[in-house]
């Protein structure tokens, strides 16, 4: 028997864990990682419970402090928010399992408790953004999540504070634009509650302030989501952050922005406002399409696995934006599926990049050779599987989200978008096979072994321990298993998560 008020528990568990970890870990630093793991497991469990409830009962509203919604803050649990919280909490669980060892290796011991506390606060923000039904509350959670991320990035290698500062400047501008948009929306509607705003907008004529509000919100959330021209912060932040941060930021960070755009523009403003009155959906689709090609091409030019994955993220976020921008049910399902799939794929790839850094001391593509396949067989296998999923080879998850996106583009009769999806798969193949080719077929003696003595050569490296290997393999396995389960996921969850207009 489950208590009936589990709806706000995932963000609350993270919030209390974020406060409790630095206190408890004052004396025992090793406790921090364990507490974070326990808190994430609990939050993941309750988000699964929430998802099952939402599938069973439809939309449920949770009122904070018992205040009636337009006045008080409410949390909305519907199949969409239930699905996304479940996905990000399960991914966070896997990544934190892996972080247990990689934090030990990359971060000074005195910083473990604050590091885990910041991870918890970041997840508080992520869960809060997804659950909340209030525009201003969303802004607060957005800033909670972003502020913790700046700290998480800045503990990395030498350049990481610069990357974090750049992200801070852009992130603050993004948050500011969103807040300004909320201000205009409040002037027009007189309400901050999402459901209330939807009902009021239904009766209101379209006025310039409303369009300004929409545009400002799109820019603000677009920066958080890293849509093409607003992605400037992303490559450096992903590259210079410590591996556990990259692994938790890449699958979750940008998805939150994507989710907020889906929630606000499709559920609150409605299709008419974003496709007919203003071309917001079209703009999003076109920018995303450019971003897909741009990100894929730049990913081909990188010589460092993490940086390549960062540019690939710009492209993959583009798929989500494209799916949303198509504004039909296939596109929306493709986008939601890709939120989950890209989260899993990127988590797996960044975990492998972390494993390489741990064992080799670097993750540069030009220094990899085929001894790696013998010395770290499981990590390379997981990388290959995830790379195939990114390319979109059929039984893996990547194929299915691209399939739905392609169906959406065909339904819209937009052949250019279809071409973009197909060409980008080809480009994905090019940049991932560069790495795979080096890992499996490049003979050892083609590079000078003595060029850097501080680095372990690939032949001397050992496979990482079970703590690091297990989550990597679980993610890799999930890519295939969920690929087979995709019909079930789409049928039971995602078709219920569509906005009513489709």
């Amino acid at each position, binding site marked *: 028997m489950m208590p009936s008020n589990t709806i706000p528990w995932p963000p609350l568990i993270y919030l209390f864990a974020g406060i409790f970890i630095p206190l408890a870990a004052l004396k025992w630093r090793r406790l921090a990682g364990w507490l974070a793991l326990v808190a994430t497991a609990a939050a993941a469990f309750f988000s699964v419970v929430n998802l099952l409830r939402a599938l069973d009962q439809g939309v449920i509203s949770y009122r904070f402090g018992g205040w009636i919604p337009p006045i008080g803050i409410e949390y909305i649990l519907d199949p969409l928010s239930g699905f996304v919280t479940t996905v990000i909490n399960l991914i966070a669980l896997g990544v934190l399992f892996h972080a247990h060892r990689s934090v030990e290796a990359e971060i000074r011991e005195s910083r473990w408790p604050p590091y885990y506390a910041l991870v918890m606060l970041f997840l508080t923000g992520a869960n809060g953004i997804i659950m909340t039904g209030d525009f201003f509350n969303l*802004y607060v959670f957005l800033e909670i999540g972003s502020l913790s991320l700046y700290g998480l990035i800045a503990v990395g290698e*030498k350049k990481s504070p610069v990357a974090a500062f750049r992200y*801070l*400047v852009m992130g603050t501008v993004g948050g500011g634009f969103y807040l300004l948009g909320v201000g205009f929306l*409040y002037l027009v509607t007189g309400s901050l509650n999402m459901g209330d705003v939807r009902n009021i907008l239904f009766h209101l004529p379209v006025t310039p302030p409303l369009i300004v509000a929409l545009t400002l919100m799109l820019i603000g959330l677009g920066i958080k989501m890293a849509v093409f021209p607003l992605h400037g912060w992303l490559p450096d932040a992903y590259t210079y952050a410590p591996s556990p941060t990259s692994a938790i930021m890449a699958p979750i960070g940008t998805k939150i922005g994507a989710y907020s755009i889906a929630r606000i523009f499709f559920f609150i403003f409605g299709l008419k406002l974003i496709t007919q009155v203003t071309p917001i959906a079209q703009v999003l689709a076109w920018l995303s399409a450019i971003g897909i090609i741009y990100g894929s091409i730049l990913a081909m030019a990188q010589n460092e696995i993490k940086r390549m994955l960062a540019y690939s993220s710009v492209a993959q976020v583009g798929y989500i934006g494209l799916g949303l921008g198509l504004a039909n049910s296939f596109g929306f399902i493709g986008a939601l599926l890709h939120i989950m799939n890209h989260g899993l794929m990127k988590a797996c790839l960044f975990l492998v990049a972390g494993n390489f850094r741990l064992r080799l001391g670097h993750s540069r593509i030009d220094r990899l050779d085929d001894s790696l396949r013998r010395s770290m067989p499981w990590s390379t296998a997981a990388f290959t599987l995830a790379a195939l999923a990114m390319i979109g080879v059929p039984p893996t998850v990547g194929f299915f989200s691209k399939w739905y996106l392609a169906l959406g583009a065909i339904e819209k009769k937009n052949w250019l978008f279809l071409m973009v999806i197909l060409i980008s798969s080809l480009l994905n193949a090019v940049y991932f096979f560069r790495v795979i080719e080096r890992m499996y077929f490049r003979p050892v003696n083609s590079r000078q072994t003595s060029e850097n003595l501080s680095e372990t050569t690939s032949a001397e490296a050992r496979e990482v321990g079970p703590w690091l290997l297990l989550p990597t393999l679980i993610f890799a396995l999930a890519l295939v298993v969920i690929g087979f389960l995709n019909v079930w996921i789409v049928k039971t969850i995602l078709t219920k998560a569509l906005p009513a207009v489709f």
Partner: protein
Amino acid sequence: MTSFILGHYAYWFILLLLVIGLYGLIMKRNLVKKVIGMSIFQVAIILFFIASSTKWEATVPVLSGHQETIQTAAYINPLPHTLMLTAIVVGVATSGVAFALIILIYRRYRTLNEAELLKRMAEDDAE
């Protein structure tokens, strides 16, 4: 037209502040000045919310004694003020994190000038 311009003078001022903030954020080379620009940008947004809540001939939203019907036109809207309390806290936290990062950057690169910083970062790569 003149009444439109004069009637919204607070908003023109806020718009100017917003642009000054963004200018500082983008064009200034010094990282501290960028943070100053960021703060101006945030203050402009806070002022925007506050300005939107004002009404002519209205007073502070404190009810004195028990009243049967509440004349909403007689009181200033208190909601934007409370929202902006939170936004101010967010702004303070952001500046705090920004200055902490600036200290870190200065310790590692001994400069706060962006051009110089990029040069020294590129030198690191070359090594």
